[in-house]
């Protein structure tokens, strides 16, 4: 499958029809998605219509956007006026949004063809997509294994060649970890870089939309399309404070005098095969002349505890609106309005969502607020300062994305705490708000992909992508595709 950039260039140059590209992906989806389970909904007719519009524009010599005719998938927690926006939850199974998310508008402006909406852990809560209330998605490298999560459907779809690229959302690693498990590139931009308008909120102060792509160039291309201020999202950063850059412009230029920081005690927690892959990646950078320093991130270990207080607190409030009163699932067994709430929510939310709502409600309760929520905010500040200090010393941080490669379906579902702990490398990044990327850097002995995580300072996605591209140019991990 062509990358988004390659395909767009071919289509724009008239060397290929968008309609043919769309046909290719739908043929493949029809062949394998019943096994893979990446998509919750598909929009074949609409996709062909959109492809035709693009092909007509090109035939007429009109200018076309940066994703002209390119088949793109989006995670099903982004609102669209077409189809349902389910968040993989029974409570929103039939919810049709009357508006498009900001990123959907941006994709349309770029002439992309949105082919379908991808599976996820219910309300983006999870690390394996096993918490989807609607569907099971499997890992294209090994169908007994999870694709990661929560953007598991998006990652699996990109890895299996069911789309040229996809959008996911990342609250505690939900783009980077499935990208790592599926062997694709996943970028979480700086908090505030991409508008959250139309993204169904999980943890509002942590959520960020980003691309999952076949290579670093495509990540830059998609970021170019979706980044920027949106007045409908007060937390999206104004151009005057952090202007959007052309992330493709300098992508091929290596960062001169690159200084990389690593955190030895963190890496030691990963599987040997993961540790080795990270060492090999660092070796690649060394061979390119990079300097590698070892630093300490003293508060990193508290990230998971702080995250599961802050994210669940916000979630308990964000998900309060799903009550069976105004829209979405309503219990038929309710006898009064209080039961409309309690029964609708009880019947339609999955176990993990309920667990997090209860955790968050508890943390915010009077008498516990100071001990949990307020303390977590303090930890968050300490973690931020850890990152600030790190980026004072080095251009970027490198570490694993996940301590393991993709695990087996059902392996961790009985032990939520184990599942939470696996997010150790990705979670602190969301608490600090900095950008992070996962790029393929090797395979373990079971031929499962391993991701290298690179982190850099706020709004330095341009540098982050350039650093990622340096590694990509020297290796071919990203070109390996699952035999699916």
């Amino acid at each position, binding site marked *: 499958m062509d990358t988004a950039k390659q395909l767009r260039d071919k289509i724009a140059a008239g060397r290929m029809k968008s309609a043919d590209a769309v046909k290719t992906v739908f043929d493949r989806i029809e062949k394998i998605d019943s096994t893979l389970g990446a998509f919750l909904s598909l929009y074949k007719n609409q996709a062909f219509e959109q492809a035709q519009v693009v092909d007509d524009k090109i035939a007429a010599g009109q200018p076309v956007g940066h994703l002209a005719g390119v088949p793109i998938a989006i995670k099903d927690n*982004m*609102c669209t006026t077409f189809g349902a*926006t389910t*968040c993989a939850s029974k409570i*929103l199974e039939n*919810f049709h*949004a*009357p*508006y498009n*998310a900001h990123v959907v508008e941006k994709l349309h402006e770029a002439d992309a063809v949105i082919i379908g909406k991808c599976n996820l852990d219910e309300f983006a809560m999870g690390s394996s997509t096993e918490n989807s209330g609607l569907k099971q998605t499997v890992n294209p490298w090994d169908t007994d294994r999870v694709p990661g999560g929560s953007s598991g459907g998006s990652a699996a779809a990109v890895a299996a060649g069911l789309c040229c690229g996809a959008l996911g959302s990342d609250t505690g690693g939900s783009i980077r970890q499935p990208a790592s498990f599926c062997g694709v590139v996943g970028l979480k931009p700086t908090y505030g870089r991409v508008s*959250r*308008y*139309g*993204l*169904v*909120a999980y*943890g*509002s*102060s942590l959520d960020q939309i980003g691309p999952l792509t076949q290579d670093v160039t495509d990540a830059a291309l998609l970021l170019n399309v979706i980044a920027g201020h949106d*007045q*409908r*999202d*007060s*937390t999206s950063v104004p151009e005057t404070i952090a202007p959007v850059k052309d992330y493709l412009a300098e992508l091929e230029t290596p960062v001169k005098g690159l200084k990389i920081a690593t955190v030895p005690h963190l890496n030691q927690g990963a599987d040997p095969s993961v540790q080795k892959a990270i060492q090999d990646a660092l070796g690649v950078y060394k061979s390119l002349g990079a300097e590698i320093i070892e630093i300490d991130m003293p508060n990193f270990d508290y990230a998971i505890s702080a995250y599961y207080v802050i994210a669940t*607190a*916000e979630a*308990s*409030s964000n998900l*309060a*609106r*799903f*009550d069976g*009163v*105004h*829209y979405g699932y309503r219990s038929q067994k309710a006898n009064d*309005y*209080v039961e409309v*709430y309690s029964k609708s929510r009880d019947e339609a939310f999955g176990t993990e969502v309920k667990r997090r709502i209860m955790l968050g*409600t508890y943390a*915010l*309760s*009077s008498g516990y*607020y100071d001990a949990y*929520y307020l303390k977590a905010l303090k930890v968050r500040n300490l973690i931020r300062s850890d990152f600030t200090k790190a980026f004072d010393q080095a251009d970027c941080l490198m570490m694993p994305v996940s301590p393991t490669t993709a695990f087996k379906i059902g392996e961790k579902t009985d032990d939520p705490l184990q599942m939470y702990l696996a997010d150790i490398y990705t979670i602190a990044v969301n608490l600090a708000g900095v950008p992070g990327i996962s790029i393929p850097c090797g395979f373990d002995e079971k031929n499962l992909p391993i991701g290298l995580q690179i982190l850099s300072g706020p709004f330095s996605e341009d540098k982050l992508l350039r650093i990622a591209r340096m590694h990509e140019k020297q290796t071919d991990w990203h070109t390996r595709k699952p035999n699916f």
Partner: protein
Amino acid sequence: MAELDYKIIVGLEIHVHLATRTKMFCGCELAYGDTANTHVCPVCIGMPGSLPVMNKTALEFSILTGLALNCQIASFTKWDRKSYYYPDLPKNYQISQYDLPFSEHGYIEIPVESGGTKKIRILRAHLEEDAGKNIHTLGNFSAVDLNRAGTPLLEIVTEPDMNSPEEVGALARELQRIVRFLGVSEADMQKGHMRFEPNVNLHITRNGEVFKTPISEVKNLNSFRAIERSIAYEVRRQLHEFKETGKTLQMGNKSTYGWDDNQQVTVLQREKEEAHDYRYFPDPDLVPVEVNDAWLGEIKSRLCELPIQMQLRFAKDYGLSDYDAGVLTADRATAEFFDTAVKFGADPKRICNLLTQTGLKLANEKGTTVDQLGITPENLAKLAQMTDAGDVSATAATTIFEEMAATGSDPMQIAEAKNLIQKSDVGQIEALVDAVLAENAEAVEDAKTNPKKAKKAMGFLTGQVIKKSKGQANPKIVSQLLNKKLK
């Protein structure tokens, strides 16, 4: 039992709808009484993925009110979520302000019956979004109208500094006058622009010991009369209850009451304040607001003289009665129009009469304010001067006022064109007087000799002279001449 010595203690929570064009966190226009759910969007009905964006004007209106209430304005303020489940609250949390309200620690001066004012301390004022409305009149089910959801709502909390129903009423009226002067709210009670929740209890002294009765919170009062009557009722009820049970204020035994306007009684809604846990936390969708000196200065420049100060000044400087000063300062347009007209030099009482008797009536009929009638303050002053000088009669002044409003012309020109100038030439009038006296011998006789009929006869003769002058003779001179000649 002997009558108890007691003191009434009342604090007040007031909700004021701000008169912004759009809602607090979205672009929907404010609506009152429109078809249900026609002023809504994804944000104010809490659709997933929608995000609030602060209405800057609403915050500016609030800060302006805070300044008028002598509050300290915070340089850093933020938004919090207040969680509770109710069908009229679409997100099941209300965006409000918890620990860092935009303003705190002020006071409001209210007029008191003995004259002068009393200071009532303001604890805090914060901004929040209003909820929608549940409708229970459709039979077997309830409906929700979200037109009101998201309306900017200013909540003002006073200290318990009021000691009578009348003082609470006075505060409510004074606040209405202030927000109208500032132009931040229409403060129309019937439209629910202002809602009041008094917290009432009594400090009863018996045998030298002070007993505090349990606090009652009366919810959602939306008329001045209901405020005063419900508090008066609570005073009676609490006194009675204390005599019967001796119950006193303990931790947490605040009860919530509603006001039944038909029965004129308060009705218990919740015995004990349920252990409400609103789980406040900072709203991550909104950025905190920094109010810097430049911005605050700009808002300060929009402040005007407050109505109570104007009222006191009008009474003191212009010698007006408290009543007149109160009528003139009921709205800002009238007050300022009056104040400007007086500066053109005429008797303030005369200007006041013209403005309150004719001006306000006319403005009311036209559904506007006196400054919009087409009359300049200068011309009003001229008219007052003409009336005082006897150039025109008081009746004629009304006619001229109306004509001024219709045409915008100068009062003297109107008076001349309409032949409304009074004749004050003694010689001319004397001739008319003589003629009338000659023609009405009987009345002259009565006036001179019959004390019983003298007054009536004088009135008749005056009328005849004025009639002969075609209404133009100055009645003062007519009566002086008649008196002289009939001695």
